[in-house]
C-alpha cells in the first residue's frame, strides 16, 4: 500500500472533536485495527485535539489542522496548532519534565500528555514554524503492538 494522505481543518472548538473522533474511528476500523486499539487511537486524538484547542489556539477561527497518513506499516497523525495565549516555550525538556512530575492520579488536570504517551506507539511534540505545536502520534498496523 502506497502512502496516502488525508487533511482535515476544523475550528479551534471542542465542539468539533467528536466528528474528528468518529472519522479516525471509522478510518481505523477500515484499516482493520483491533477494536481495543481503535479506542486507543480515538482517545489519543481526542487528547491531542483538546490540547490544541485549549492550550494551542488564541481564537476559535485560528483552527487546528490534522494531517493523517497511512501506509502498510502505520497510521500517522500530526495535529498542528498555531499557539495559544500561554508561553511559547512549553516544549523545553525542563518544562515537560515539570509537567510530568506534577501529574498525580488525584489531580483534575494534566493527564492528557501522559495518555498520549501511553497509548501511541510513537509520539513527538515539536514547536512549529507558525508559533504553535505539532503533535505526532504513530500507531503501527502489524497488530504486534497492543499496549497497556
Amino acid at each position: 500500500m502506497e502512502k496516502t494522505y488525508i487533511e482535515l481543518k476544523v475550528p479551534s472548538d471542542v465542539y468539533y472533536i467528536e466528528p474528528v473522533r468518529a472519522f479516525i474511528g471509522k478510518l481505523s476500523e477500515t484499516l482493520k485495527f483491533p477494536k481495543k486499539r481503535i479506542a486507543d487511537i480515538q482517545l489519543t486524538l481526542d487528547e491531542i485535539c483538546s490540547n490544541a484547542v485549549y492550550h494551542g489556539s488564541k481564537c476559535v477561527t485560528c483552527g487546528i489542522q490534522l494531517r493523517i497518513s497511512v501506509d502498510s506499516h502505520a497510521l500517522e497523525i500530526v495535529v498542528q496548532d498555531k499557539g495559544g495565549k500561554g508561553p511559547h516555550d512549553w516544549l523545553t525538556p525542563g518544562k515537560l519534565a515539570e509537567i510530568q512530575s506534577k501529574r498525580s492520579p488525584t489531580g483534575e488536570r494534566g493527564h492528557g500528555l501522559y495518555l498520549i504517551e501511553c497509548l501511541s506507539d510513537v509520539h513527538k511534540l515539536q514547536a512549529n514554524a507558525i508559533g504553535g505545536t505539532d503533535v505526532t502520534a504513530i500507531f503501527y498496523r502489524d497488530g504486534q503492538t497492543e499496549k497497556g
Partner: protein
Amino acid sequence: MTGTEFMIIRENADIKIIDVKTDLSSYAASDLRKVLEGLLSEKVDKVVVNFSEVNHINSTAVGTLVGIAKRLRQNDGDLKLCNLASTLTRTFNLIGASSVVEIYESEKSAIAAF
C-alpha cells in the same frame, strides 16, 4: 427526572443517579461538570454516575469526576461510578483515577456501597 438531554437525573432515596447518554469528549465533559456542580449547589452529596451508554471518556471528563468526588467527600458524601465498558475502565486505570473514585459493576452495588 431532571437533567439535560444527555444527562438524565434520577433518584433513589437520598442518592442521585445520573445516566450519561453521550460519549464524554471535552464538549460533553463540560455539560457533565455543569450537571454535577448543579447537584453540589443543591446540597446533594451522594451521587452515582451510570456509564452504561458511554463508549468513550477523555482525561478532562475523568478529571471532572475526580474533582467532584473530592468535593462530595468534604461534605461526607461521595461519587460512585458504575457500568463502565472495559475501554473506560482502562482509561481510569491508566490515569490512576480508579484508586481515587470508586467504580462498581452495577448500579445496584454502587447504591448499596453508600
